[in-house]
């Protein structure tokens, strides 16, 4: 910000309203309000929100996997792209097997990521491994890309003794300190202002670390989302807001969720740089996230990326989406505009991936997932004492008493509390 010379108003630089510091002068015919920097207008006119031709959707590949504008091709190596494809399909395979396992009563609950694999892999690949990730619940691909082992995915879903979260949460509430992925929590959008705080702390640490915060278009309606956007902009945080706009919040379609032009149009309202991308195009997601990350850290400001995609699966195993949308609609996205098939076309065009590769990879990924699955089923549940630890950093006297009381109760009624399945 520049300082003005005292008693001189020539050469004042006009700054956005929030940053004004020039002295007030009512001889000028310009609004002097501290709240906004603007000109006067003499006729009444409401600004029309533009929802017919809203913010354009950035893409690199068309639906057939062809690059449209070669200068936008990130030109990643074959290993990188094959890795993208394998991670997306491995995620898909794990989703199918765990969804079935819930149907068979082996795990209590599951949420699939069908159709959104591109958003996970593209954004995760554009980040540094030490960047902190705050997710909502449909970002398992980010964790998979970073190398979270299948055993630990399964362990969390089965809530067995191997679970890093000690078996305390519902399935898909993953977390990993080593991979800088903050543990998922069920309340929606609570992670958004937290991400702003973490980004502020990262900025103060000055270690070139960014933070990314994922959420859906439904969660973006929460007050916490507004809080997070506003805080990150005013406090100048190196943060990427990544909205997965997948068309539905359980059964609520977007026209019942908002009337404006999606989430991307809200960014400028907060003074935030925003973009809308084709979420089913891995390279578009990659490019946008990469550039946003670079600038967020360099310029200490937040970025908003709205990735348009489609939720092909049900909201969760407790949902049957045929109750509120047609099978034709789902089939269109599954067959005509799927991130996995688009990337596959791209690779096939360059002869990086053949039918044989596909067959053997599918077989191998199914095998590794099933192995991890069978192993997880056999593991013990966590030790019962873990019900009482970590409420505070150290157990309080009443928690110790309650734990002892529990063991006395179990000892007394041991026929009703079989402990074979639990770790000793």
């Amino acid at each position, binding site marked *: 910000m520049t300082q003005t010379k005292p008693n001189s108003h020539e050469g004042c630089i006009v700054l956005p309203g929030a940053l004004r510091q020039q002295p007030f002068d009512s001889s000028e015919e310009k609004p002097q309000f501290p709240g906004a920097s603007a000109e006067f207008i003499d006729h009444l006119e409401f600004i029309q929100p533009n929802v017919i031709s809203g913010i354009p959707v950035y893409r690199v590949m068309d639906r057939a996997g062809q690059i449209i504008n070669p200068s936008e091709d990130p030109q990643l190596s074959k290993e990188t792209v094959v890795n993208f494809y394998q991670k997306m399909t491995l995620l898909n395979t794990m989703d199918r097997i765990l969804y079935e396992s819930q149907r068979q009563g082996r795990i209590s609950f599951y949420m699939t990521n069908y159709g959104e694999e591109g958003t996970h892999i593209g954004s995760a690949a554009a980040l540094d491994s030490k960047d902190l990730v705050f997710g909502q619940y449909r970002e398992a691909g980010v964790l998979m890309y970073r190398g979270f082992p299948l055993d630990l995915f399964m362990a969390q879903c089965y809530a067995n003794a191997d679970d*890093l979260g000690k078996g305390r949460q519902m399935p898909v509430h993953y977390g990993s300190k080593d991979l800088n992925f903050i543990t998922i929590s069920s309340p929606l959008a609570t992670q958004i202002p937290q991400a*702003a705080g973490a980004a502020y702390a990262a900025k103060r640490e000055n270690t070139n670390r960014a933070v990314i915060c994922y959420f859906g278009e439904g969660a973006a309606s929460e007050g916490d989302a507004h809080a997070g956007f506003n805080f990150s902009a005013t406090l100048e945080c190196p943060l990427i807001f990544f909205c997965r706009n997948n068309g539905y919040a359980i059964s609520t379609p977007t026209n019942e969720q908002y009337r404006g032009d999606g989430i991307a149009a809200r960014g400028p309202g907060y003074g935030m740089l925003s973009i809308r991308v084709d979420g089913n195009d891995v390279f578009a997601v990659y490019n946008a996230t990469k550039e946003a990350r670079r600038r967020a850290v360099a310029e200490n400001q937040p970025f908003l990326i709205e990735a348009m995609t489609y939720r092909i699966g049900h909201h969760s195993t407790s949902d049957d989406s045929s109750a509120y949308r047609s099978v034709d609609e789902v089939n269109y996205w599954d067959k005509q505009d799927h991130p996995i098939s688009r990337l596959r076309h791209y690779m096939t065009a360059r002869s990086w991936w053949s039918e044989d590769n596909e067959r053997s990879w599918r077989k191998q990924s199914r095998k590794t997932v099933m192995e991890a699955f069978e192993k997880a089923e056999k593991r013990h549940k966590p030790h019962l004492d873990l019900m009482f630890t970590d409420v505070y950093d150290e157990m309080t006297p009443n928690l110790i008493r309650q734990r002892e009381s529990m063991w006395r109760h179990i000892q007394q009624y041991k026929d009703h509390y079989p402990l074979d399945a639990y770790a000793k």
Partner: protein
Amino acid sequence: MAASARLLFRGAGLKAYTANVNSGAQSSFGTTLLRLSPNCSSQTKTQIKHASHFTYHPDPVPTMYGPTTKMNLFQSVTSALDNTLASDPTAVIFGEDVAFGGVFRCTVGLRDKYGKDRVFNTPLCEQGIVGFGIGAAAAGATAIAEIQFADYIYPAFDQIVNEAAKYRYRSGNLFDCGNLTIRAPWGCVGHGSLYHSQSPEAFFAHCPGIKIVIPRGPVQCKGLLLSCIEDHNPCIFFEPKILYRAAVEQVPTEAYTIPLSQAEVLQEGSDVTLVAWGTQIHVLREVVSMAQEKLGVSCELIDLQTILPWDTETVCKSVAKTGRLLISHEAPVTGGFAAEISSTVQTPVHTLNQTDSNLSTMAKTRELCKDIRDKIVDQHKAGMGYRTIGQQLGEKATTVGAIIRKWKKFKKTVNLPQSGAPCKFSPRGASVIMRKVRDQPRTIHRTWSVT
């Protein structure tokens, strides 16, 4: 907000007396808010329009924490924050209007001294303030969030209860926000009305995973606030706003801590235990001297200080000694924190595994109450031996054996009416008992069984 008092007598058939006392009303035991001339010298006679006055009782000068200087409550907060920002480079303070010094002047001078990246304003959004604080704490910074009034903490309730309190537990200790401290002005100030006077500690007391602390004066405030900041759990620190200027003490300039979850017995007594926190401590101090002077009653006064996790041992031990408990707090009585204290104190002590204080009913000579008899049978079923049971419950092994044999034979633990002396009280018998209770109310089971 009226002060709510809960009054409990031990004995007399295990019934709890509870008396609600509204401000200005008098009860036979008298927890009233008196109209005394205020201690604050800035008040002239014509300005007396507050209904609630109390005399602030300063703590004695502490000698073990180094040199002291005169500070009021808000200055003691500033001092604590100053010490923290000086020693911890990750510490940041944020909230509405903290940059210029805060609406209660708690952060005056800190931005100039430590920089605008460490002491900064946030937008007007409590859920954002606490959410931001949680994220900063989880990322490793010492985050000190200010909520402008405790009355406005509710938008942050979700972040506090669903997120901060559960961060460590739900992540299996991978992540935590122990570096978070939330401060808020709290309690009646006289003119605050509905929305500048609230004491919301009871809402949060129901939430394991956070700590709630309320100081009674500047020395306690600085030490307890520094303990909260140091503590590895998210803490809510409520500052009695009426004491910000009124409470003046000699406060150590260096950093020091006062332990959390340790209630302080401010005055020992023998007839009744008084428990309070924050401003009400000073009200009860007056009650203590009034009770002594007018009723000849000796009161034991306890400052709870930490509401969650609270020091059950100190309070129960005191009530076991005095036999009576009175709790006074500003919040509404239904579901107020006094309800938690009174219910814990009345839980039969053998479930608290304390054998040296016995809060059982006053029963006939040598007859144990049904709860203890059931407990004996339960422990026997669990496989404990007679002697062990006896030791645990403070009964003779032979008594335990007799009860168990009766249970084995009759499948009951109740005592059926015996032939011989009638067990119904005649009016004369009842008045004999009542006279004994009036004269010597602190009868415990053991005195009856002494021959």
